[in-house]
């Protein structure tokens, strides 16, 4: 059992599998709503999907294309108040800002559940980020497996979907009349157990149907793949032509969106915001793609040119050094960077360029 799994109160891998009738799913969501804040995919404007707190079970989407905005926002908001600083008669008082109640992330796609697992590892590494980890410990992740790959997704290349073996508290799979609920942690167990009467142990037939759906999903991946292995070999053995970064960086517009929506990115800046009579110390999303992100106080910038920053992104996400540290590439194959990129320097495109040594726009 790893530290991180222990922190979640359970062993790696499914602890048990249950089934719930589809007709009872709203009853279950009602039960979960009573336990804390439920964040689930909801319909936005004109076909958009957004993860947001729901108030009633009927707001929850069960069949949807994944939200362009990652649910990592639940743990790592774009503006993230960490603590309040107030002047009192007795001196300065510092108080942590915490979510008011336990939270449940419902229907996270496999890639996003994997992203949350990745971020947990990062925040446990070296200096433990207690603010993040406390919030993570207060969150129960209910993932929803993906019977069909999404159009830009390549989770299959990152071991982050379409179905998960671990890294979730509960993994739901839609079997038609029933939903299969695989429990991955004590927190997950609690979520299923508090709903007495709604769940029953899953049958062998249901488990075999889940395996069949997974096999079909895996077979359904088309062109959207990303061969990290050979790219990582080239990066880690210094076999990427330098001129490639020059060429590719002209196809990047420094929007930073690839990093902002990436389920595994966590770069931030800190700033104090005046609020009432004191301050609120906030962590804010930042991006290694922004020019002054690495600007040092001396005026020196180790990554002054766009090509340096584009290169840095891939040398982080797809290098053996970080693979050894994190146990995975810094990508869960959600394909969001393909959609949000103002240019064309998304993960699959750049990985292909690194492998082939040429850039085709």
């Amino acid at each position, binding site marked *: 059992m790893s530290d991180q799994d222990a922190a979640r109160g359970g062993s790696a891998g499914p602890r048990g599998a249950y089934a719930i009738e589809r007709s009872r799913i709203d009853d279950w969501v009602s039960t979960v709503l009573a336990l804390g804040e439920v964040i689930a995919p909801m319909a*936005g*404007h*004109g*076909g*958009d*999907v*957004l993860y*947001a*707190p729901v108030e009633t079970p009927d707001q929850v989407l069960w069949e949807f294309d994944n939200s*362009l*905005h990652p649910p990592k*926002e639940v743990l790592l*908001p*774009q*503006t993230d*108040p960490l603590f309040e600083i107030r002047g009192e008669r007795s001196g300065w008082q510092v108080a942590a800002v915490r979510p008011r109640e336990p939270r449940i992330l419902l229907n996270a796609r496999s890639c996003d559940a994997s992203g949350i697992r990745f971020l947990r590892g990062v925040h446990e590494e070296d200096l433990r980020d207690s603010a993040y980890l406390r919030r993570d410990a207060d969150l129960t992740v209910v993932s929803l497996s993906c019977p069909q790959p999404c159009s830009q997704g390549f989770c299959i290349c990152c071991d982050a979907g379409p179905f998960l073996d671990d890294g979730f508290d509960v993994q739901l799979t839609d079997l038609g009349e029933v939903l299969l609920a695989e429990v991955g942690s004590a927190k997950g167990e609690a979520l299923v157990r508090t709903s007495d009467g709604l769940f029953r142990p899953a049958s062998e037939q249901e488990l075999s149907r889940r395996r069949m759906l997974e096999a079909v999903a895996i077979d359904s991946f088309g062109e959207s793949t990303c061969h990290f292995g050979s790219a990582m070999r080239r990066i880690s053995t210094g076999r990427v032509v330098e001129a490639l970064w020059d060429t590719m960086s*002209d*196809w990047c*517009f*420094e*929007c*930073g*969106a690839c990093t*902002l*929506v990436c389920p595994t990115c966590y770069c931030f*800046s800190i*700033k104090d*915001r005046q609020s009432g009579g004191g301050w609120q110390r906030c962590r*804010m*999303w*930042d*991006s290694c793609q*922004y*020019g*002054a*992100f690495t*600007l040092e106080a001396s*005026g020196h910038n180790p990554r002054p040119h766009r090509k340096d920053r584009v290169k840095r992104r891939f040398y982080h996400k797809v290098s053996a050094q970080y693979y050894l540290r994190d146990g995975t590439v810094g990508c869960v194959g959600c394909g969001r960077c393909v*959609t*949000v*990129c*103002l*240019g*064309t320097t998304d993960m699959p495109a750049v990985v292909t360029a690194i492998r082939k040594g040429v850039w085709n*726009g």
Partner: protein
Amino acid sequence: MRTVLTSCPFCGCGCGLYVHARDGIPSGVAASQHHPVSQGRLCARGWSAHAAAAWGPRLTRPMLRRDGELRGADWGEALDTAARGLARLRSSGRSIGVIASPRLTNEESYLAVRLARGALGTPHIDAPLRAEFALALAGIGEVSGVASSRGTLQDVEASDAILLVEGDLAASHPRAASAITRAVAAGAKLVCCGPAATQMSRLATLSFTWRPGAETDSLAPLIAGALAAGAGEPGAGQLAAGLDALRASLAAIAVGDQARAAARWLVEAARPSVVVAPFPAAPAAVRRVTVAVANLAALCGGLGRPGSALLVLPTRSNAQGSLDMGVTPEALPGGRPLDDGGLRDRLAAAWGTAVTADRGVDAADMVGQTSGLVIVGDALAGGVPPVGPAGEALSGSELVVVLDAFASPALDAADVVLPVAAAIESSGTVTGADGWLRRVRPGGDPPGEARGAWWVLAELGRRLGLGGGPDSPDQVLEEIANVVPGYRGVDRGALDTGWGVLLPAPPVDRAALQPLPAPASPSDDRIVMLDGVYDWGSDPLVDHAPILCRDERSRRKLFPRGQVAMAPGDAEALGVRQGWLVKLVSNHGEAVLPVVLRRELAPGRLSVPFAFRYMLADVLAGMPSASVRVERV
């Protein structure tokens, strides 16, 4: 947490985004995957659209200047003081100007016009950057008969040949750059024209760099090439008037191989598109360029052909809507001429007062020259006054009323300060360059006592004798839909159920080709030019956004004495190296700046970032470029 869909407040692309607010304070942005403009793609500015409102120095209560100091006041007192002062100026026949930010909603812009031409009886109403945008559109109108853009960024993205005329599109309009980049990646031919090499010109199939002052000379070979490739011949699509005169004006133009190839791509394309982004040029040149570009679009069949766009991108988000609402000294709402008596009567009936139909002065001329000045929104961030501290420039006015969300240098001269909602907290509509009317929804609550600018403008109007109301931005839109040409009968329901409403554009029946000016005589002058038309770094929405302001601020910090870029060969010839000082001497004056080397600059061209324009003010004397002598210091 609250999440609303709204329109991006930065440039004129018209992207849609969701804004999150925690406790009423904007806290983040999410891209909208299905928004027809942005399609999930936002630039760095869009991703920080929430930030200035949350982090900027907000004005939270009305203020009045008493004994030389701005002091808090209540709304009634502040509005009464402003209205009394303005009424006094009006009754004593003194001039009053209204400068309205092109970031205001249509409703706010309309109310600003109602305040100026109605309540204050003054024709001096303008927005910064309006003149250049209006000139660019006027050039299009000269050829097509309709002074407006056509088509959308989606059309551009699906085009197979694109002509881009730009200063630096990747910096000014990243989302438009994205549309073009995707088209290029899909195989489209891109032809770039502008004063300098840019990121887009590096992606282009062919690019042409013009000499400032001789802009159309780089477009003339393309037009001549298009004619040579058979465009304009009977049977080659739209027949246009003026063909012979155009041909005659191009008789002496030599068409090189590159121009011939580029022209052929545009002529043979099934869906040719033209995108015009802001470029630094003298006002008359802006118009000459868009006339030339519209000629080319007409010859290629790109005017009015479905799927072919001709887009003029304004620098700021609602420049199009602001112009449509009549924020201009030279036209009535809807772009109608000032002598349109029918429209004036309709406006007068709606406003309950006569409508002034004189021609007013431009924003730049209002500053310091009008006795009273009403500044609505972040109008002074758009280059008014062009150089120098705003407070000083405004001090010539007797009464300065400022409606703003943020503390700004204008407060130094303000007599009345009325705190309003930031753009991201506003309600109403905006109009994109693509002619789409879209909703702006409040992504947060204005802090303290700040109110929507529409309410403040309505209250000022009421106190200056206009009738009651409006009571909401929707009521203003209802009035707009009744009286503003082009907005008549807008389906307000569709604004909420869909992504917006496409405003009807008059058809282009028959283009009137315009002859091109004679080529400029060759010149070996060294020319120094500004590299843009707008300083995003001093835009409050950038400057107050913690992540976004960093690049701009650090550049200023790194170059405290400014910089002038030149080609390495020029530096070599002068005997200067990176960081050394050079003196630039024009007919108007001189300036000393340190050199940075830029390989992409053509020999003899020097470029100074727009943000450092004030360091070059004496050399340029108000123009975007000047011939100079360069000396090593």
